């Protein structure tokens, strides 16, 4: 089972990410699962989702904006933000927005090309679970969350910038 990091511990990932091309029939075949579905899937198959036996969450790709689904955000227990490639930095801004003016309190999960060397910044932007890429060492990833003891900026982990803290 894929590994997930939450609260600086490794756990089994109980959610399955559906890719873009998947159709609604999956919800009829695989029952009582937890699916993270693409935003378009969720918009298109609302009635199927309503009838589904398991939990449904959504994921946003890096070119999709959290603010576009502002009104419905709070229905989701988790929102996953995709890194198509680790060097695409747009999901950091999406996470900041979710934690900022969109005031999303649920789980924000990093999915896709999630590597240990970016985890510290992700955590400061509001991600709190990390579906690390299969080849990543989970223990090293947990360590990487402590690469730095603090940062200069206000962020999700430290609500005030350093200059207001000392």
């Amino acid at each position, binding site marked *: 089972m894929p590994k997930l990091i939450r609260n600086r511990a490794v756990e089994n990932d109980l959610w399955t990410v559906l890719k873009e091309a998947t159709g609604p029939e999956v919800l009829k075949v695989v029952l009582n699962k937890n699916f993270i579905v693409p935003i378009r899937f969720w918009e298109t198959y609302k009635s199927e989702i309503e009838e589904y036996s398991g939990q449904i969450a959504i994921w946003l790709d890096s070119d999709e904006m959290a603010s576009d689904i502002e009104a419905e955000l709070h229905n989701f227990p988790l929102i996953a933000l995709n890194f198509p490639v680790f060097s695409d930095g747009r999901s*950091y801004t999406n996470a900041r927005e979710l934690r900022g003016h969109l005031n999303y309190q649920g789980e924000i999960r990093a999915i896709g090309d999630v590597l240990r060397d970016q985890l510290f910044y992700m955590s400061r932007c509001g991600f709190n679970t990390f579906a690390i890429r299969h080849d990543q060492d989970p223990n090293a990833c947990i360590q990487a969350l402590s690469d730095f003891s603090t940062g200069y900026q206000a962020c999700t982990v430290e609500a005030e910038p350093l200059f207001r803290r000392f």
Partner: protein
Amino acid sequence: MYQYNEYDHQMLTERVAQFRDQTSRYLDGKLTETEFLPLRLQNGLYVQRLAPMLRVAIPYGLLSSQQLRKLAFIARHYDKGYGHITTRQNIQFNWPQLEDAPDILAHLAEVEMHAIQTSGNCIRNTTTDQFAGVAVDELEDSRPYCEIIRQWSTFHPEFAYLPRKFKIAVCGTAVDQAATQVHDIGVYLVSGPEQQVGFRILAGGGLGRTPVIGQEIFPFVEKKHLLTALEAILRIYNRQGRRDNKYKARIKILVKEMGIEAFKTKVIEEWQRIKDGPQTLTEKEIERCKSFFIELPYTATQDNPDTLTEALQKEPLFLNWYRRNVKQHKRPGYAIATIALKETGTAPGDVTDVQLEHIADLSDEYSFGEARVSHRQNVVLADVAQEELYALWQQLRNQSLASENLELLTDMICCPGGDFCALANAKSIPIAESIQREFSNHDQLLDIGEITINISGCMNACGHHHVGNIGILGVDKKGEEFYQISLGGSSKNEASLAKVLGPAFAEEEIPFVIRKIIAVYKDNRIDGEKFLGTYQRIGLEPFKDKIYAKAD
């Protein structure tokens, strides 16, 4: 200057440890080339033509003598005995080994230096006027605000993977010496409606392939809103800047494609959300940062002391240097002395380990232990008592540091070019040298007057060729190096982009072409007019006619 506190030290130490681990994983084959790339770039390491290149940050160009000595040590032990001052007030070493980089960074950390974010798609070193704090035409010292921006931009978790590099310059003087308008963000200290000092903020400037002059986003923001205003611009850029094409990924392209009004609206909308939030600067923080740049313990009080006047009378070479390289200081009795790193035969901006140590000693002896580097690749001793200028000059002469060509034709900006840089299409250092050799007579240089020649070895424009009065760009034509000449650029207040003169020239033609350009200027200038003034009055045509004229 700014002194690190326990937090700055701690984060820097943690960064060195992090990069040491990343480097060893890369060398062990556990990190791929692609995954290591942005990590090493954000620690200043390029892989160049001959060896890795390490670019060390000099925040807003300010150095202590202790830091200068450390740079000398690094040049000597890890390089071939020299460093190169860049157009963004950094210093780069051309010959370190990748395996040594973590050790070099540890050495730098001992003197509160690093190579963080000197490369890569992140917010780079913030630059400013090399005369900040001592200039006569200054509204307010820009350095405290540069330091505030330095801290905010360092390890910014949201903006470490931007579409492309991002450069910020701050200017507090009436005469802009920081090329502020050709930065991704340009910040000017200005007087507000109630005479309070705040910021005017531009965005979307930049050089490179598509040179653009920045446009105004905020006509005036109060000081406390500096960081939220910057953050709003960066957020829109991070989200909407193009990522499909590296050459269209800078903020200037986003601003162009969206249109300035639409971009501004987005930024202001974002700013309204975060304005007055936690990143709002406190009075206490502004005062704290200012406290590092308070007035030095000046003792001299008298302008033009007898010792200076006498030395100027008896020593014509000193007079030459004084006239060119010494500028007025805001305090009576003091002067700003520039060490032009433009000796003919040495690559512009290059400085040896021994010279770095001498500059360190001289800064201790004559300038309160501080020195600055300028974006025109020179070094400044900003607080020299006028009565000591002659002694300083004598010592500079002994070290080949007394080039008296500041702001003259031979004080060129020049990138490392094809001799070092993997991106370059053509060499640039030999071009600079051939021009310096062609114009070796000081009286002749004085007669030509103030002019900037900027040379880049490729269209990435590290040598700022678009904003040189004369710009020289190295291009590749079927494997051969050619040089395109443009005229009329400026990075000062009247910022303008140079216009291409015509077809490119071969390397050996360049000195003669420059000679002809200068001849057209001299034939047409009206008393006291600088090159740029004449060009602006007569335009490109007379230059074209002369240079491309068919031989009779």
